[in-house]
């Protein structure tokens, strides 16, 4: 299992691995928003938590279609399915590798991009916490979507449409934590809801992903 994780990380950092794609998209979105909505700093600081969360979510979505498709194309998914690793472990490791190469960099970049949107000072901590708790769910849900669409030509479109509604609860509660944190309100309830959603997806979805992957490999 460690070998699979190390291989996926290595592949992501090598040429053409797609590391940085999500990060670049996140940067583009947050840099362009002030140009499109205008320079009023009060308006920017109001929308900053929501924009940063939406940017992170879309950046995550962008990298999903390569998650399993590459392994399917070169035949290694078939070989992994016949290897001693259970498929549940394979999809969990794949999701973890995706989070480490996409989710975690977004979490770390968010405070710097928050400056561009004039995020209020108390909001920085809550933005990082909410992204840290919420992004693992996006990787796990995304892996489920990738497993559903593996083997489809141009499955990326279908994948985004399938995954988008599943991302809505995470987005609502995650952006709510960041927004309440930025305005100095109490954040416990949405943070607990967000953590609950993440914990539930990590606990349940790998089994669903492995099951649909088995059907798709037939």
């Amino acid at each position, binding site marked *: 299992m460690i070998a699979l994780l190390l*291989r996926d990380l290595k592949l992501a950092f090598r040429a053409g691995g797609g590391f940085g794609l999500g990060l670049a998209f996140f940067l583009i979105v947050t840099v362009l928003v002030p140009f499109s909505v205008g320079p009023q700093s009060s308006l920017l600081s109001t929308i900053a938590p929501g924009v940063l969360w939406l940017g992170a979510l879309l950046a995550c979505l962008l990298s999903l279609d390569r998650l399993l498709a590459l392994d399917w194309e070169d035949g290694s998914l078939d070989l992994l399915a016949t290897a001693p690793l259970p498929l549940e472990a394979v999809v969990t490791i794949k999701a973890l590798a995706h989070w480490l190469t996409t989710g975690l960099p977004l979490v770390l970049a968010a405070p710097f991009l928050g400056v561009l949107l004039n995020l209020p000072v108390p909001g920085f901590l809550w933005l990082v916490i909410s992204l840290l708790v919420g992004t693992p769910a996006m990787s796990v849900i995304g892996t489920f979507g990738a497993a559903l669409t593996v083997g489809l030509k141009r499955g990326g479109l279908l994948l985004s449409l399938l995954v988008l509604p599943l991302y809505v609860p995470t987005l609502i509660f995650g952006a709510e934590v960041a927004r309440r944190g930025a305005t100095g309100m109490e954040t416990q309830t949405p943070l607990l809801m967000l953590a609950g959603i993440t914990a539930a997806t990590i606990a349940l979805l790998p089994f669903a992903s492995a099951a649909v992957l088995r059907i798709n490999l037939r």
Partner: protein
Amino acid sequence: MTLTVTDLAIARGGVPVLEGLSFSLPSGKALILRGPNGIGKTTLLRTLAGLQPPLAGRIEGAEDQIAYASHSDGLKPTLTVVENLSFWASVFGIQDIQPALDAFALNDLSDRHAGNLSAGQKRRLGLARMLVTGRPIWMLDEPTVSLDKNAVRMFSDAVRAHLGQGGSALIATHIELGLDGEVLDVGLNKAKPKPIDDFDGGFL
């Protein structure tokens, strides 16, 4: 470890291709799978490897015993030969990849990226993967595609050594490998088209 297949029926894309297939593969033996294109050789190998369920029949002794090599080699172009091979070795819990590199003459290529290998060299790397699985039953689907004469001999030597260690092999191929294995012609087990049973005789 004997692989026993009884009265197996398999389907590809929902269409039955083979039925009533029975054979057994004892350890130390090779079985050469033959049959015309589209008869279901790949489907049979995928079914035995556990990638899809059979329509009917029983497969015994296959669970966690099979190393499967499909048409594609499962190589990552941005990893080197050694990185590709040691990844599969650690997935299967094997430490030493040197015998596999030796058997397919990959030592000189060990630091090359798999993406820069020729088709035949990629195939050799894909076949070397079988040696790091440690599994007793090899299932090979057209293993000699794009191999030159020399590499085909390396391959049959590797299979012979594997059989000598008590392993077994089921090989779908159209060329003569020089292995003294039995030939299983699945052309005889072609699934018959289903009779249409909703024919309304009373209508006539």
